[in-house]
């Protein structure tokens, strides 16, 4: 992450040194992108419970895989090629979760029954608001290349397995996973964003373009066990869409 921030800063500095080469033919822009969040933010959690006078345990593997995201950005030039802007990225994806647990036996100590299964209906929702400083590289009138970076505000909702149910029957030597009890954990944190946007304009105001950005952070969300569980949000995103400039 630090490396990416450094690269972004270097790009902006390089761009500033070249700003005397020309000015941009617009003062504001809006871009709407369909993007792909490239990173997999899988994580694990665990919890304990007391059943049959003994402590049981379950572990959960959350698959937060890459997936589509919606990205909307807008900004204005404040000085020659330098601008400021704001962007919003929304990522939402179901997060199939594998649960494996050890359920105490009702009659014997230290004879846990192993259960496993998939918990459905869990979802990851990420909303990131990016504040940006930007620089537009001097190019031709139809092509626009812009580098940007800045802080991001991340709000993450994650469906978490807080408990689970199982079925068993006498003699209780085995148990079968039945369902997961899902709760929604929600957390916010400041991160950062940096990236490059390139566009081609068919007309003076309308065009298409692509964006590659990294925006991410690490949050501590409520764990099924005691305390919190560290999860990553965001990551590398690439996409494309419409460009408007005014």
């Amino acid at each position, binding site marked *: 992450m630090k490396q990416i921030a450094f690269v972004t800063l270097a790009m902006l500095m390089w761009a500033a040194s070249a700003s005397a080469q020309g000015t941009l033919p617009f003062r504001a822009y809006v871009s709407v992108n369909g993007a792909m969040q490239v990173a997999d933010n899988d994580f694990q959690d665990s919890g304990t419970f007391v059943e*049959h*006078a003994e402590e049981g345990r379950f572990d959960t593997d959350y698959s937060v895989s890459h997936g589509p995201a919606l990205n909307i950005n807008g900004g204005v030039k404040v000085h020659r090629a330098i601008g400021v802007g704001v962007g919003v990225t929304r990522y939402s994806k179901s997060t199939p979760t594998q649960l494996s647990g050890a359920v105490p*036996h*009702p*009659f*014997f*100590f230290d004879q846990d029954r192993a259960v496993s299964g998939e918990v459905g209906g869990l979802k990851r929702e990420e909303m990131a608001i990016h504040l940006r400083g930007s620089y537009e590289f001097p190019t031709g009138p139809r092509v626009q290349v812009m580098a940007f970076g800045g802080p991001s505000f991340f709000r993450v909702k994650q469906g978490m397995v807080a408990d689970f149910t199982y079925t068993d029957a*006498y*003699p209780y030597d085995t148990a079968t996973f039945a369902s997961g009890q899902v709760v929604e954990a929600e957390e916010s944190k400041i991160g950062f964003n940096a990236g490059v946007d390139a566009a081609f304009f068919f007309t003076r105001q309308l065009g298409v373009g692509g964006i590659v950005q990294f925006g991410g952070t690490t949050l501590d969300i409520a764990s099924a066990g005691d305390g919190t569980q560290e999860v990553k949000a965001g990551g590398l995103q690439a996409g494309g869409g419409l460009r408007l400039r005014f």
Partner: protein
Amino acid sequence: MRTRTRSALAAILIAVFASVWPRQPEVAAQSASAANGTRVSIAAATAGELGQWSALLDSRLADGSMRRRVTYGDPALTDRIVDAFVQYHDGIEVYGGDVSRVRDDGRTVAVTGTVYTDLRVDTRPGMDAAAAAQAIERLAGSALVGEPRLAIVPAIDGRFVLTYRGTTASAVTYFVDATTGDSVMQMDEWQSQAEVGSGRGALGDTKKVSASRRGGMFAAWDLLRPAPILTLDTRNNPADFMRLQNGGAPLERDLAVDADNTWTDAPVVDLHANLGLVYDYFFKRQNYLGIDGNNGTIAGVVNTSALLPNNAFFTPPPFGPGGIGGVFFGATTQGTPFTVLDIVGHEVMHGIVNATVTRRTGTGLGNTLYLEIGPSGCAAPFYCDAGRFVLVSNDPGALNEGLADVFGAAIEFFSQPAGTGPLRADYVSGEDLGGGGGRSIANPSAFNSLPQVPYPDHFANRILFPLILTPTGPFLCGTARCDPHPTAFVGGRVVNQRTYVPGAGLPLTDNGAVHLNLTIIGHAFYLAIEGGTNRTSGRTVVGVGAANREQVERVFFIAVRDLLPRGSSFQQAATAVREAARITYGPAANVTRAVNDALLAVGL
């Protein structure tokens, strides 16, 4: 089609209803007749039926046969009113006669409940409330909370009975006949819910206790196994012990309870947990359900140490708690409870022998004296045959005990790791009581049955007692009348010369050596599994090996369950075991060969 069918049904029900409660509207109902009253379940569906029921309820309110118990609204629906009614007959509540009516903005939208019509019940009680209170407390063994009230209840046979209703401190509501004081109905006010606790046994081992929550306490009542398992605690009360032993109903206070489900009463912990393990063994290994084979309640009684020193026993139906049979456990004179696993298994196996043989023959294995002519030298008061002693042994009794030891050991090997010492599986009975145990089916002669008389490892070494002649006939030596000596024979020779103490009497003959000759069949079981050489016969047996012990256990169990005749001799039992092996595993099977060799090795 559905509507038409329902209409036809409604017409029939209305007709039934009309015949039993005049002046009622033509409404849909389901009714059931009884000798002195009729039960009507209200099932109003149409607006007309609802309106008629509502009007009827209002009229019954006016004449006092229905009383409004409560009226309340629905906070979410301001126009909704719910009326709850209860039925009375001659001023006495009719238990179960309850009706609910729901109205929206004054319009009846639902009527449900039950009423009893055409009641013909004498409402004059034959006893007063004080006498009823005594009757309830006597039934419950617990104090009544509040005063008993009159109520008419539908009994289980359909009659309507005038009763007194009272709830005791044990959270059971009793309805007793208002004339006789007999119980008509009982309701447990506590809902039992299985809840596993833990406790420490007499050997310091922590184990789980499959308990149930009853009110604010936890009871040793296992609801997790298919057969309910109850552990009752007499708390050394002689009257309770006798009541439970003699078929009296278990009372709420008999249940072993604990306040926090962390059990500290070691005998209760051990018995309750071990009864569960024993159930598990027979379920998993023998596909057998509980003691009676039908998952009937298993009742264990504990904490009878002062009443049952150095002993434990099974008592068959109609004895035991509630007449269902039961296993009772005392303690050693050092205070160690007899609730160790192999002894619990031993006593439960007695119950299984009794149940399975009774199912096939009508009675249990029984007690039969098998006679043998002993050595010469017999004289009065002994019963003689041409100057020779007439000796007897109770073979079915010894087989019963021996098979109980066999499965006591089998259960240990099923539930505990093999080894020596506490909580280890072995072939010694009662080793966890301390003192190294009482008898061994691996090496019977390692323990003495009588002073200087080892337990027999061979049929030829079985212990026999002489009959004594009394005015009423031959009598098995067992009381002071057996004096003078000798008292016990093995292999035609006297083995137990006893010192005569006038007035002290002689030790009992153990009902014909049932706890002495038991090792013969047990040793055969051992040899069939582990192999070895019988010391008496010198025959060597190649056992099936510990890994295949299940096969030998299966053979012995099938012999008991399906083949063993009542009053069985040792020879008949051996035949049953051989046949069980043959029909289960085939004549050429290794286990069949091992069982046969083992029986031959012990002289059977």
